[in-house]
């Protein structure tokens, strides 16, 4: 890749080598965990205790502090997977494959959380657990896309081939992301419109907005920790017989 400056390319080669990445993950995880816990604590305290009760929805609106960040993460992680898929297909980078497949269960988890918390919020506010509204339906399709990625990867024995197939699926499925995002504007249905992303004038008070943003950043850090843990496992599984795993075992013994 001659158009990439040599130090940058060297950095990527070093970082993406499995033993180096494994050690790097070990070094970062404690710090990421501390930041995550601080953000989570502040977000929960602000959202559940400090923020005032909503004048229309009462205290039921407090579900927003997990529902919205989880839904954001469900989209964010899918886009990350598609980017990793692109990198894996073009440059055949092993670490991109590992990061893609390690992200899938975490993304599926957040999608599931967004659907369940939405349902628990919808029941008291809309009077129903579920409607086939555009936002809800496209989010459900996202869950199936995640599950599709996980089962496709599991179904193909040869892991490099499995990663190629999964990369293509991740890239194709990305068309669903703008559909989810704009669904509340394109189809005017039960799900409420955006409250935060109208950045010029968000229709939410600062005391309610700050905990929401804290939770959103906390979930980003959670994703980093969880994906590093999953990637460490995936690397070990793939490279059981390699020299660096043997060295690792000897160091532990």
């Amino acid at each position, binding site marked *: 890749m001659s158009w990439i400056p040599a130090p940058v390319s060297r950095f990527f080669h070093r970082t993406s080598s499995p033993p180096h990445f494994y050690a790097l993950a070990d070094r970062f995880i404690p710090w990421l965990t501390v930041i995550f816990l601080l953000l989570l604590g502040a977000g929960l305290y602000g959202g*559940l*205790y400090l923020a005032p*009760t909503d004048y229309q929805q*009462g*205290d*039921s609106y*407090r*579900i927003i502090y*997990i*529902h919205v960040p*989880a839904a954001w993460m469900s989209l964010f992680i899918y886009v990350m997977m598609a980017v990793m898929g692109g990198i894996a297909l073009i440059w055949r980078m092993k670490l991109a494959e590992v990061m893609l497949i*390690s992200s899938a*269960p*975490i993304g599926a*988890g*957040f999608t*599931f*959380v967004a659907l*369940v*918390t939405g349902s*628990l*919020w919808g*029941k*008291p506010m809309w009077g129903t657990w579920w409607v086939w509204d555009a936002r809800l339906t496209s989010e459900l399709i996202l869950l199936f896309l995640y599950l599709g990625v996980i089962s496709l990867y599991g179904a193909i024995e040869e892991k490099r081939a499995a990663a190629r197939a999964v990369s293509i699926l991740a890239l194709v499925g990305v068309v669903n992301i703008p559909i989810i995002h704009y669904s509340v504007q394109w189809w005017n249905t039960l799900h409420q419109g955006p409250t935060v992303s109208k950045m010029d004038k968000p229709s939410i008070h600062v005391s309610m907005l700050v905990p929401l943003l804290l939770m959103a950043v906390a979930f980003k850090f*959670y994703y980093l*920790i*969880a994906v590093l*843990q*999953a990637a*460490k*496992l995936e690397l*070990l*599984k793939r490279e*059981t017989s390699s020299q660096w*795993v*043997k060295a690792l*075992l*000897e160091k*532990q*013994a």
Partner: protein
Amino acid sequence: MSWESFLYMGGYALYVWPAYGVTALVLLGNLFWPVWQRRQLLRQLTIKQKRSQVR
């Protein structure tokens, strides 16, 4: 605000707390499942390596 009224959540406790509970379960599961799996794998690999050294 008392603990009781905090837990009561203005009458929405049955919706708010399960929502937070499900979230906690899913996030903890996704975090600790790979950690546990890795420990298992490392243990198996160590046993295998020791066996091959004996031979």
